[in-house]
């Protein structure tokens, strides 16, 4: 029994991509009830991986996904599965590499390229070892650290608020009740902007029912079909033990996932209390410094991170606000700077110059909140210069940065969190690298992996590291898209193909291609060519009458445009309208489902195709008989 518990705990440490886990409190903070769907979906996925898929893999000759599929359905099916494993693993590796790069850049001022390079070496070393025990130990350590980094701050915050020991994960109910009261007062006083505000416990405001449904199904099936999770649980080679290891893994993952909404509520309570008390921006509480310094939060479009970059620009010799824009490079900071009111730019520039003249007079944080923020507030029409709900924008990853400041011992807690999420990212990435190294068929001498597999794993991780250093990709959509491809391409085969005797090789191959194809087509179509996607599928779109009228008007404009330039402009406007944005669903959709949640379409297509094609192709057992 204790063996399966240990195996489950170790699998739990590497079950979920660290970047997604770190973003979860911020997601729940942003959308309240609606984003609780993430936790439910992820845990349901762990249960399915352990109970539905791992026992089947444990019965196969090798627990790796591609070899188990190859054993039953032949080499072609194994190759298709191998390609899918790489397609799923690559974006997940990119996400965790990027995440660690950000963590070290913001936390320890180490250039991302060094952190990512060190991580690449560690991940490849641990992931390509023949012995699975070092990886299992690393994953178990990751779980312990993650649990500590979530539960220790929770306990400390609950202690500070309640003035005594409580069980934080259950005791926050009263705090939630209190938060609801604060929210009502804010609404009554007209202090919220309903574009960005939704009451924390109110359901279906940011996501409607069918979005929640599609998200839960995509996450659950995607986690169930993750290339490393079920295989790790199946390493015992005994289905009965694999099942209990899966149940233990679900228990350990559950402990992490139920602390997430608690952290979100504690942080939201602290922020909304600050807003309710009309706290002047010049005396902003110190726990907001960390997210502002990391650029993970913005107040009226500014952040401490931006101010420090302006200081660096002035030190580098920039004489005007326009020169600062050039010094900021081509990234998000430049766009953030150019979006600011010229008056605010001028104030920041002058404050930066002043700070450089006498660096010891006041810290950058003091100058930022005392000088820059009141100017930014005035430009935004916030004449009282107090913290407002609409003025504060928070990245999903920024919320965790508030937490250490709320505990009373910010330094050690921040260090514990950074350590925990780094080790978790290492454990997940090394597990994925191991899964990639195992996709090439094993030789007859029962060695688990070939040197070609290791070469492939090194190539895939190096590619992921390269993208992580040079690309700036939004992490949450990236991880969810990878899970959607896993749900669409791999889940039907792993859940139904391996269990159903009548499944045929042709059925399995076509199902993998069709499932991944449908989801891939949906994600690419809605993002890359949204206007023509909508034109093709307009009867299925959830577009409003108003949006359709606008689309038709732009279409006519594009058709009647006289110059090439005008036509290109109208086509771009059409694409923007059809693509939608983070806050507005575009026209290019099927039933309003977000591109990242489209795993549900692919999984459905994959299951249907698997059943139909298997039934019309001759069964293996019949064809095996002479």
């Amino acid at each position, binding site marked *: 029994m204790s063996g399966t518990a240990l195996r489950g705990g170790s699998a739990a440490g590497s079950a979920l991509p660290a970047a997604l886990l770190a973003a979860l409190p911020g997601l729940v903070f942003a959308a309240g009830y609606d984003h609780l769907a993430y936790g439910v979906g992820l845990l349901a996925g762990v249960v399915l991986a352990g109970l539905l898929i791992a026992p089947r893999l444990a019965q196969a000759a090798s627990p790796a996904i591609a070899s188990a599929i190859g054993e039953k359905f032949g080499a072609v099916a194994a190759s298709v599965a191998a390609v899918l494993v790489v397609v799923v693993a690559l974006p997940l590796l990119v996400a965790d590499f990027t995440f660690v790069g950000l963590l070290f850049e913001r936390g320890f001022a180490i250039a991302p390229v060094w952190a990512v390079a060190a991580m690449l070496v560690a991940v490849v070393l641990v992931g390509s070892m023949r012995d699975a025990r070092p990886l299992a130990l690393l994953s178990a350590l990751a779980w312990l650290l993650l649990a500590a980094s979530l539960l220790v701050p929770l306990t400390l915050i609950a202690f500070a608020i309640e003035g005594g020991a409580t069980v934080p994960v259950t005791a926050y109910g009263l705090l939630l009740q209190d938060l609801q009261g604060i929210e009502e007062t804010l609404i009554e006083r007209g202090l919220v902007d309903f574009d960005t505000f939704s009451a924390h416990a109110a359901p279906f405001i940011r996501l409607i029912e069918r979005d929640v*449904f599609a998200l839960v199904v995509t996450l*659950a099936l995607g986690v169930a079909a993750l290339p490393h999770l079920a295989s790790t649980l199946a390493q015992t080679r005994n289905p009965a033990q694999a099942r*209990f290891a899966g149940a233990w893994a679900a228990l350990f993952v*559950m402990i992490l996932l139920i602390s997430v909404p608690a952290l979100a509520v504690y942080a939201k309570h602290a922020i909304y209390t600050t807003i309710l008390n009309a706290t002047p921006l010049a005396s902003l509480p110190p726990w907001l410094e960390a997210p502002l310094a990391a650029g993970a939060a913005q107040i009226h479009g500014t952040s401490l991170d931006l101010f420090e970059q302006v200081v660096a620009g002035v030190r580098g010799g920039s004489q005007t606000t326009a020169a600062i824009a050039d010094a900021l490079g081509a990234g998000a900071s430049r766009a953030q700077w150019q979006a600011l009111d010229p008056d605010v730019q001028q104030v920041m520039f002058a404050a930066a110059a002043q700070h450089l003249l006498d660096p010891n007079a006041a810290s950058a944080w003091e100058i930022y909140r005392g000088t820059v923020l009141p100017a930014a507030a005035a430009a935004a029409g916030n004449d009282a210069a107090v913290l407002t709900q609409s003025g504060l924008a928070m990245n999903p990853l920024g919320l965790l940065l508030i937490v250490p400041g709320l505990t009373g011992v910010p330094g050690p807690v921040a260090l514990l969190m950074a350590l925990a999420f780094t080790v978790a990212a290492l454990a997940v990435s090394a597990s994925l690298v191991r899964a990639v190294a195992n996709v090439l068929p094993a030789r007859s001498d029962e060695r688990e992996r070939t040197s070609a597999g290791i070469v492939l794993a090194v190539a895939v991780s190096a590619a992921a590291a390269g993208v992580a250093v040079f690309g700036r990709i939004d992490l949450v959509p990236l991880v969810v898209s990878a899970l959607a491809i896993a749900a669409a391409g791999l889940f039907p085969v792993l859940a139904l193909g391996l269990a159903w005797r009548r499944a045929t090789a042709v059925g399995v191959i076509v199902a993998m291609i069709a499932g991944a194809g449908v989801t891939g087509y949906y994600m690419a179509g809605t993002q890359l060519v949204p206007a023509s996607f909508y034109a093709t599928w307009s009867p299925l779109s959830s577009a409003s009458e108003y949006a359709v009228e606008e689309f038709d008007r732009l279409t006519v404009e594009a058709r009647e445009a006289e110059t090439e330039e005008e036509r290109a402009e109208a086509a771009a406007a059409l694409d923007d309208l059809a693509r939608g944005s983070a806050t507005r669903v575009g026209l290019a959709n099927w039933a309003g489902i977000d591109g990242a949640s489209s795993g549900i379409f692919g999984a459905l297509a994959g299951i249907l195709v698997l059943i139909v094609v298997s039934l019309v192709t001759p069964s293996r057992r019949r064809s095996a008989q002479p």
Partner: protein
Amino acid sequence: MIEIGIGVLLVAGALALVAGAFGIVAAPAGVDLFPLFGVVGTGLVLTAGLLLVAAGRTRRAIARHPERRHTLRSTRLTIVALLLVAGLAIALPLSPGPFNLLRIGGFPAGYYLAAQGGLIGLVILAFWWAARQNRIDAEEQGS
């Protein structure tokens, strides 16, 4: 046998509701029950009926074909467990309305179930599922 009978009755009832709603047959005494049940309610009645019929047929098949006992029992357990997973992970978060009328320790109950209760339920379900399937495997090994 009894579950097949009840199941057939439920399916017939659901079909009658749909038929009444679309005016295919005149509703008895002019009462249209469809709005009372709604699409979801009618769907639930229909699903419950079909599941009962399937359960009854599976029980008979298990009694008649001892050589297929293991497959049939495992398949039945898998389907029941998957339905329970869907209930806890999908149906529960989608229906917080009625639960939110209650409060559990300060939480609106619908919120509590989506944030914690459903997750705890999934873990209990996972242990039950593992124990149950292992028992089926152990019992059927000899036969």
